[in-house]
């Protein structure tokens, strides 16, 4: 390691450590005004009463504060529940808002400073570590030592990394109240971009984007000499920064609905939820355009682009989940399971999610246009279930947290309903395929090992067969790592796409299917 790489690692670890400690700084003090400001009108009176014992007490930590808050709040709800007074139960979770307003901490006082010392240092460290990687080496495949690594081969560093990611996602989705200091840290930035206060989602989006940018830089270095890899990395960096992060915030600044123009149903599973439709339909021309745009992407964009280029146009050039997987997740791509069994599981699970989200969405739309007379609240419960199990647990906790255990595309491979939809088009009606170069395959297995989707590429390559798999995201790494120039991602005529060649080229003795 060069000196600046060592400094980079040091900065990164220091930044991450500070980031990890920040949520536990400061003290919490609740007041009546805070409760009034942060609760809905219908709950104000109740909440004021429930939390009365907490006023003007100083709580030394988020644990103390949230423990007390939960005790009071649950006591109230539990007694109602036990008396079957469901309509009086307060279902809203005010923990985050109240904790955010009650915290008094150095982070809240000096957000920029702490942002710099945590995320800033980590990003700077990542930059220093990456920006001249492989400088003394020639362009080529840089996979040496991956299976001797403690991070990339499920060693103890990998276990810690995975554990950390999982914990972060659990806090983010279900216990954001513990992270209010971190949210305060990005508050000024949020105000600059959207004019509003930061939420935990803004924090998440910000970190997510930075992770893609810093690790995207790593991809540029790792794949020096491979234009395909560099261009698609640049593409996901651009779409994440502009489309997923900046534009939606700026739309809010301009008093328009928050909207990510590249997010497509059914990955964007709440696109047809009542509050979304209300937003689109009540926001004039812009809102209506968003609705039409979203529907056009589903009905025309996906089939058309996938017909011409395969699902890679989305999964490894545009998508945010794909963007993170291809940058932050790239070091873990070899950990995907290549067995036939895994493929069988994959097909069952991913298509079940697609069916689930489709049924849920149809019910939601029908319910919406029938004025909620048909199903009433049932769709809400479905939404809660889907949001919890699929949207948060699967896509988030497992999707990213499991990078160091099961590879970087766990969500995309086993869960993403949009990937399932794109995959069906790719499998049955597309010009895309990976072509095998005659008889040149030596069955070495680099392609299968480095396939993040767990496709046994070699199975096809050694038989001289085109690789046409619904799950293939067209990342192009199989082609890159092939030492004999056997694999090529191609868009070509549909004719002959599935054709099994007779014996592999090179042997003129016989002509039988191999």
């Amino acid at each position, binding site marked *: 390691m060069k000196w600046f790489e060592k400094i980079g690692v040091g900065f990164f670890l220091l930044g991450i450590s500070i980031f990890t400690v920040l949520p536990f700084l400061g003290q919490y003090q609740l007041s009546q005004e805070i409760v009034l400001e942060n609760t809905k009108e219908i709950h104000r009176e109740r909440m004021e009463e429930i939390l009365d014992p907490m006023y003007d007490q100083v709580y030394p930590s988020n644990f103390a504060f949230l423990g007390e808050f939960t005790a009071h709040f649950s006591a109230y709800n539990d007694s109602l529940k036990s008396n079957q007074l469901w309509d009086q139960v307060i279902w809203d979770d005010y923990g985050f808002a109240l904790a955010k307003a009650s915290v008094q901490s150095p982070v809240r006082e000096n957000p920029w400073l702490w942002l710099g010392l945590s995320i800033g240092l980590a990003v700077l460290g990542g930059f220093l570590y990456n920006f001249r990687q492989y400088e003394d080496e020639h362009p080529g495949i840089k996979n040496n030592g*991956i299976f001797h690594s403690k991070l990339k081969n499920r060693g103890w560093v990998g276990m810690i990394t995975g554990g950390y990611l999982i914990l972060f996602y659990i806090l983010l989705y279900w216990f954001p109240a513990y992270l209010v200091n971190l949210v305060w840290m990005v508050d000024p930035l949020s105000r600059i971009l959207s004019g509003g206060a930061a939420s935990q989602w803004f924090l998440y989006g910000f970190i997510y984007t930075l992770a893609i940018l810093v690790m995207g830089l790593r991809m540029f270095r790792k794949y020096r000499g491979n234009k395909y890899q560099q261009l698609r990395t640049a593409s996901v960096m651009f779409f994440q920064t502009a489309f997923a992060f900046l534009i939606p915030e700026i739309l809010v600044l301009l008093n328009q609905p928050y909207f990510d123009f590249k997010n497509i149903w059914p990955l964007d599973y709440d696109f047809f939820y009542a509050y979304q439709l209300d937003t689109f339909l009540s926001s004039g021309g812009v809102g209506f355009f968003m609705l039409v745009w979203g529907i056009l992407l589903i009905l025309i964009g996906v089939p058309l682009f996938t017909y011409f280029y395969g699902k890679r146009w989305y999964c490894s050039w545009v998508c945010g989940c794909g963007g993170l997987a291809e940058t932050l997740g790239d070091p873990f791509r070899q950990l995907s399971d290549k067995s036939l069994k895994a493929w069988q599981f994959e097909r069952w699970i991913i298509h079940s999610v697609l069916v689930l989200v489709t049924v849920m969405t149809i019910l939601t739309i029908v319910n919406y246009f029938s004025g909620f007379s048909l199903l009433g609240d049932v769709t809400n419960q479905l939404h809660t279930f889907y949001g919890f199990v699929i949207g948060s647990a699967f896509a988030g906790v497992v999707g990213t947290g499991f990078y160091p255990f099961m590879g970087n595309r766990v969500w995309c491979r086993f869960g993403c309903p949009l990937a399932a939809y794109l995959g069906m088009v790719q499998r049955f009606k597309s010009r895309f395929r990976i072509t095998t170069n005659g008889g040149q395959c030596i069955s*070495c297995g680099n392609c299968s090992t480095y396939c993040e989707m767990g496709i046994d590429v070699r199975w096809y390559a050694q038989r001289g067969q085109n690789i046409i798999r619904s799950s293939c995201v067209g990342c192009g790494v199989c082609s890159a790592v092939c030492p004999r120039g056997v694999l090529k991602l191609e868009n070509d005529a549909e004719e002959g796409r599935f054709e099994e060649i007779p014996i592999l080229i090179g042997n003129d*003795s016989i002509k039988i299917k191999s």
Partner: protein
Amino acid sequence: MPHKHIVILGNGISGITCARHLRKLDDDLRITVISGESKYFFSRTALMYVAMGQMKFEHTQPYENWFWEKNRIEILQEWVSRVDFDQKSLEFESGGSLPYDQLILATGSKPNKFGWPGQDLEGVQGLYSKQDLEKFEENTSGTVQRAVIVGGGLIGIELAEMLAYKKIPVTLLVREKGFWNNVLPKEESELVGRHIMEHHFDLQLETELQEILADQQGRVNAILTSKGERIPCQFVGLTAGVSPNVDFLKNSDLEIGKGILVNEFFETNISDVYAIGDCAEFRNAPGPERKNIEQVWYTGRMHGETLAYSLAQKKTAYRPGPWFNSAKFLDIEYQTYGTIPPVWNPEEYKSFYWEHAGGKAAFRLHMDLENRILGVNNFGFRLRHEFFDKAIKESWTGEKVMAYLEKANFNPEFFPPFFLEIQKAYKREFGGDFKLGKKTFIQKLFGARV
């Protein structure tokens, strides 16, 4: 009840391909594959990647372990000590034996040793088998300040790369004037040689191994070269080619030259005994440009395919198409289609050579005097097998090859369109009536440069 028991000795690419095709073609055969080296088929060519941590050994196995049972291919991990051709039975080192109706010998190769003094010392090894890989790990686990590799070929360069991964300085002794120049023409050999030096390997050309010297424990501690130099080293790799692995078959009725002698049907002199792959030696070379012993992955596979068809369907002679091969020298990929000799008489052949200004990509088109294609070499970029198989079989002219060269491209999207420069260079040198290709809009947009 199976009507016949075919036993295949060796589970490399030849033996396994043969077993797979036999099963495809005949459901009623009993098929047994025997190997002492490893229980399951693995890709020998990938051993280097295991050493360099790019893969685990299990990744080199092209089929999952259930595959063999599912396809009723019986697997035995045994070393065979002797074949009793009269009784049609194999005898194992462990003591057991196995009868066969037909026997296919696919025993592969072993590294050449030319009787160098000290060639069997501790720390001296070849690189061929799974056991060699294990030995490599053992031999490099202690302090190795320098390693010497004897022989400049494909395995030599792989071994050098494996040692470099372990940060062990490497000296490569090559007998010839240029790297692999008994196969590659001068320019190509120089291109590879330059790249080897770039990787800080000490490439010593026209130098042979004289003697390997040992320390008191019987471990290698230096070598002497033909130039009289003493190179201290703790590891010696012997990669001066391979020869058929047939020693245990000698002194039997089986006719053996360098390898097991076979005809074009892979039949040996003993009926119901066949030989394929590296261990087979054709009595008559399978083609005018081909050798009597074929020792590459692809030929092993083709031998297996053809013999399986012969045994299960219809007796068929081995007729390979145009030669092809590929390799990777450190970061530079190499492919070849057709036949290009290392040297030729310019009055009998025409040869077009293009090299990229960066010195890491090159293309050679070898032609007869009527400009008909005989073969191509390409370095640093990829060409389509199907295209050249056809062009060579149909004896296309150089002009025609150039006219369609874009179709021959197999490089990934957005890669430099080398073919544009190649066409221009060809036109300058040989003329010809074909249209030069142009950059596409996308290539211009993304600034594609050659």
